[in-house]
């Protein structure tokens, strides 16, 4: 009885995790500018991964696999917000602005200043990392 309950909850968590991954992926493709896309990617990184790993942990039972999954979860908790933060820092470093609100209030209007020079970016960010 407790086994079927556990596998039911685990299936639910895995399904939810897959749903959030799917919406995160659609968000990364369809959102209008960099910062909203970053949010969608962050949802995928943190929430969906948490749900999937917890779902897997419920089916693992008391074993070494449970402990290893817990460590993976801890590691992802540390690194995925850091990844979003690093992305935001690099965007700020390249002075990537939020899109201007045009009169047509179309978030995809061409007045958005989202295409500052791409060729400048990699050398700047990698050689200097941070210039405060």
């Amino acid at each position: 009885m407790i086994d079927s309950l556990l596998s039911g909850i685990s299936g639910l968590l895995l399904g939810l995790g897959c749903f959030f991954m799917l919406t995160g992926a659609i968000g990364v493709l369809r959102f209008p500018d960099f910062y909203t896309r970053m949010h969608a990617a962050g949802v995928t990184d943190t929430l969906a991964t948490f749900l999937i790993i917890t779902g897997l942990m419920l089916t693992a039972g008391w074993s070494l696999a449970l402990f290893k999954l817990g460590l993976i979860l801890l590691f992802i908790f540390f690194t995925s917000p850091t990844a979003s933060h690093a992305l935001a820092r690099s965007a700020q470093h390249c002075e990537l602005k939020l899109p201007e609100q045009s009169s047509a209030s179309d978030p995809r209007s061409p007045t958005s200043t989202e295409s500052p020079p791409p060729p400048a970016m990699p050398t700047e960010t990698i050689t200097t990392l941070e210039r405060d």
Partner: protein
Amino acid sequence: MELLLDIALLALLLITAISIAGIKDLLAAAMLAGIYGLLSAGFFMTMGAVDVAFTEAAVGAGISPLLIVLTLALCGRQQRGDRQRAMLALFLVLPVGALLIVATHDMPAFGAADAPAQMHVAPHYIQQSMAEIGIPNIVTSVLASYRGYDTFGEVVVIFTAGLGVLSLLMRSQGIDEPTVEPAPNAQSRDIVLRVIAKVLIAPIMLYALYVQFHGEYGPGGGFQAGVIFAVGFILYGLVFGLDAVRRVASHGLVQFLSAVGVLIYGSVGLLSLASGKSFLDYSALASNPVSGQHIGIIAIELGVGITVAAVMIMIFYLFAAQLRLQPRGPSLTPDHQGTDAGTAHLASQQQGAG
């Protein structure tokens, strides 16, 4: 169910490869190459090749995109759309592909248990490995003991590649005398990155040691452990700057260690030779042949791990030092022939900003 996973992963790999071929932005191509490596690691897992998946994830999704991005920082990010040989390439590639497809008709079905590949030597390895070598991971016993000579060649190849990169990119002024560096030590002053890096580096090193010594009982071994160990140092270097990481592991030390690993491996072989058996016959290392195998496998895996870690760190040092030696942006030397779009754009930007 497995077939569905197999079909889905391979289809995703195909889509990724086609997009890499079509894309013009090289940074995006490098990221897609990392995704390609990760997808193939997932595919290897569904094939039951856990050691291979581990290595491919560490190398193809970790080190390889890192090196490509470091190269792009030096060489420029945009590719000029040069399709003059596209037709010729297509005319070459399509017939060869068709011929190969025709040739696969004779191949045994995927997964067939009576295929010739499963017949000759593999059953011996699977059945005799526990009795002769005594470790559960058959891949490690084949890699380190049955085919130890090939692995020795592999370690020497890694060492040679490290030597090659050293001879290409080393400048006696830049590496040995940091005081004459033209660019300041670029380190991140961002508090989040610094704290997280400090928190993560110790578990990464611990994990590398775990993988090194656990390689006989589960997936793992010298190569994966060496790569993970190097990644810890590379993370430190990326966040705190090249000078900081060179204070911890100096260039000379890393060069020395890359040779030490190969020497350890060779010495184990010579020790067996000195005891009267053949080269790399580990049963000569102890009175009980199985214990001898254990000692031999631990020793050579240590050698492999040391060399791989040292060579990866050395390659990172050399690439990163190149970034500090050149002026900002791709090379603007006056006698180069033709500029790519990125260089021209960057040059005009710098002129406008300056």
